[in-house]
């Protein structure tokens, strides 16, 4: 009885807990991955998010075993994986270009991991059928990969990756080569499947929307370092740093040296003294600080008609551009000083505000957030 003995009642599996401890990967003196540590709970869907060159793919390849880390360790349910070769890691992997075996039928492709892991021949047809059913490709067994569309190929790749009940499913930009509509449909499908099967999934993407919709947790990487690790809500609503705020969604960021007046912190924005939000972390006196506000939290009104109130901040400016986008519109507003701000509003606003108009931009004080300097 080995660890490879399969309980073949169905495809559900106990996903592994993954622990990444201080992993670095150096090429010469360049750190592609720089001291990244992550704890991944069993059965959770974690996305490694970052721009190209952020180290996300390198980290995934280290997890898969295609690359050796320069330092650090990876554990799967407490077992050190560092010295375990790729083919003994009991992982499933999905690649951006599908990587189906072009000389094998769909059936043979999905059977491949079962055969390599010595699943008894008699059990294979049922497992293959279940896996293909899970990705809604029943009846495609005899097709060759070239006879399938991109979306179908990726679903075969997914079936092949999950059929042997891996402890960990790795996905390297799995939806990157598909068109938008298909991508959204597959996002939902993959998400449901991973939950039903209880898989631990590590997904790599540069698409923030994909990360936000699919993940239990997002690990945001930049320049090889882990910027922030948290739920999609935490990353979007409470970015811990300017890098995180800029990467996820649109944001307006103001910097300045905060002053304290009557127990409240203020910062200069476009010549206006703007009160900082209450925050658990007080700014350091005399040091630069940044606040950020999401464009859809800002309100634009013709000059003189902005809603006033103790809890609101208001600055004035001129509309530099008004962009119509169907249900919403985007305004670029030049302030009297400093960087222009971006405001997202209902497109009805364009009935009253046009390019060149003087406007007042206001927001609730609680919608602004103090960012840690990084």
């Amino acid at each position, binding site marked *: 009885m080995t660890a490879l003995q399969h309980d073949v009642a169905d495809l559900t599996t106990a996903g592994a807990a993954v622990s990444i401890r201080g992993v670095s990967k150096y090429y010469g003196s360049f750190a592609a991955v720089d001291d990244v540590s992550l704890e991944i709970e069993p059965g959770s869907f974690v996305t490694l998010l970052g721009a190209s060159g952020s180290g996300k793919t390198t980290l995934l390849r280290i997890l898969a*075993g*295609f690359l050796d880390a320069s330092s650090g360790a990876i554990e799967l349910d407490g077992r050190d994986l560092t010295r375990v070769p*790729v*083919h003994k890691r009991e992982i499933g992997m999905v690649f951006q270009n599908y*990587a*189906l075996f072009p000389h094998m039928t769909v059936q043979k492709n999905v059977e491949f991991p079962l055969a*390599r892991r010595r699943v008894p021949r008699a059990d294979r047809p049922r497992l293959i059928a279940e896996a293909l059913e899970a990705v809604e490709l029943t009846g495609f067994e005899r097709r060759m990969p070239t006879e399938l569309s991109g979306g179908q190929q990726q679903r075969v790749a997914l079936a*092949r990756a999950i059929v042997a009940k891996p402890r960990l499913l790795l996905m390297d930009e799995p939806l990157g080569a598909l068109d938008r509509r298909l991508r959204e449909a597959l996002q939902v499908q993959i998400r449901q499947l991973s939950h039903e099967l209880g898989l631990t999934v590590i997904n790599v993407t540069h698409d923030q929307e994909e990360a936000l919709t699919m993940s239990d947790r997002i690990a945001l990487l930049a320049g090889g370092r882990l910027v922030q690790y948290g739920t999609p809500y935490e990353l979007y609503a409470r970015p811990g740093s300017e890098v995180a705020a800029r990467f996820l969604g649109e944001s307006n960021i103001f910097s300045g040296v905060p002053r304290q007046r009557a127990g409240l912190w203020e910062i200069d924005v476009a010549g206006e003294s703007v009160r900082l939000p209450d925050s658990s972390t007080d700014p350091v006196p005399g040091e630069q600080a940044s606040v950020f506000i999401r464009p859809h939290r800002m309100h634009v009104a013709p000059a003189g008609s902005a809603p006033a109130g103790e809890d609101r901040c208001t600055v004035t400016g001129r509309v530099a551009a008004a962009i119509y986008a169907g249900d919403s519109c985007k305004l670029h507003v030049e302030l009297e000083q400093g960087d222009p701000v971006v405001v997202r509003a209902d497109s009805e606003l364009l009935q009253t505000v046009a390019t060149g108009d003087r406007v007042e931009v206001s927001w609730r004080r609680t919608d602004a957030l103090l960012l840690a300097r990084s």
Partner: protein
Amino acid sequence: MTTPPAPRRRFGVDFATVLASPAVLFGVAVFLVPVIVILVRSLTDPSPATYADAVTSDIFLRSIWTTFRMAVCVTAVCLLVSYPYAWALARGPKAVRIVLLGAVLLSFWTSTLVRTYAWQILLNNTGVINSFLIDSGLISDPLPLIRTDFAVYVGMAHILAPFTILTLYTQLTSIKPEVEQAAASLGASPTSVFWRITLPLSLPGAAAGGVLVFILSLGFYITPEVLGNSRELYLGSVIVQQIQVLLNSGTGAAMSIVLLVMVVAVLLLVGRFVGLGRILGIRRGDR
């Protein structure tokens, strides 16, 4: 519904055809006309009875057997030698790849005649190998290396191996690394990845190179002549003998046509399995 405007054409000829016509004319003049001349010659010099002479000639029939046996062996040797070479060329470290590619291309660009005589110098009774072995006292009489099938096979394999190396190399580099990585991630050990993924996916390259070498070696003349045994005649030598020594150019032409028919038969036979376009290097795209 309006009909789309008809493409402008005069005399039913489009621009691409005009552009291609010099090349087509050249091809017809240089490749097709000589074959037709030989065909006509074989039928009229003096009569179609030349074919009866050809296929009843003992020497000719024996040479067909000798030549096919040689072609099979040379193809096998080429493939066996080329596979590891092409593998290293496709997957090796950069320095190794540069050296290997340089070596194969240099050999490829060197005249067949030069390479054949180089083998003669190596294999002669007083050649490099025998001199060395005798001087070092390992043997007293020279080994019978030259004028043997062995010499022909080695020389031919050396001259033709670049074809199998390059077709295998092209095929191996067209295998996406992700496909092999996927196999590894799905539990296949490195040997299993090779036997189940890499080898099957490289077979079309092996078939293309193999057919190329097989057909080229059927018509080889110089190398068997210089390195081979004069009692074991190959097809090329028999045809030359008919034309130059016996002055039966009609019979020689008939033999050439028989050889041509056999080559086409082999191509068609293998083409059924591999696809002719692949062997000839014409691809209709990957999908």
